[in-house]
């Protein structure tokens, strides 16, 4: 019988996912606090664009960017460029 590894147990995978999803939510809460504190001039915020002042700008940008990246790769790029492995040898 082979040794059981960490992610062989579905409960551990579930735990990891729970931790991850919670940290995502916590980050958004932290961002709200950050905006609040910088509005009250408690911490200095360095901004280049007004966009950055919106709550969760980087978070939503990262999420949307990656989904678009994957969707474009899957539905546009792959049908265009995918060939058989021996395409160049034929």
């Amino acid at each position, binding site marked *: 019988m082979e040794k059981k590894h960490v992610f062989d147990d579905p409960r551990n995978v579930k735990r990891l996912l729970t931790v991850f999803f919670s940290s995502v939510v916590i980050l958004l809460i932290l961002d709200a606090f950050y905006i609040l504190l910088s509005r009250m001039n408690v911490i200095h915020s360095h901004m280049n*664009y*007004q*966009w950055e002042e*919106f709550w*969760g*700008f980087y978070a*939503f*940008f990262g*999420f*949307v960017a990656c*989904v678009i990246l994957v969707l474009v790769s899957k539905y546009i790029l792959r049908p265009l460029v995918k060939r058989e*492995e*021996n395409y160049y*040898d034929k």
Partner: protein
Amino acid sequence: MKTNKDKSELMELKHDPVPGYKGIFSVVFTVSLLYMAFILFQPCF
């Protein structure tokens, strides 16, 4: 070149959906997309 393919080598590795996540994904993506569009339509300076 690779005519004698190893039987153990997969041709395709699919990712099976876990039930329930597709709905979550659609909601999160739609909301984020609208919010992002809203932000980026604001002036940047």
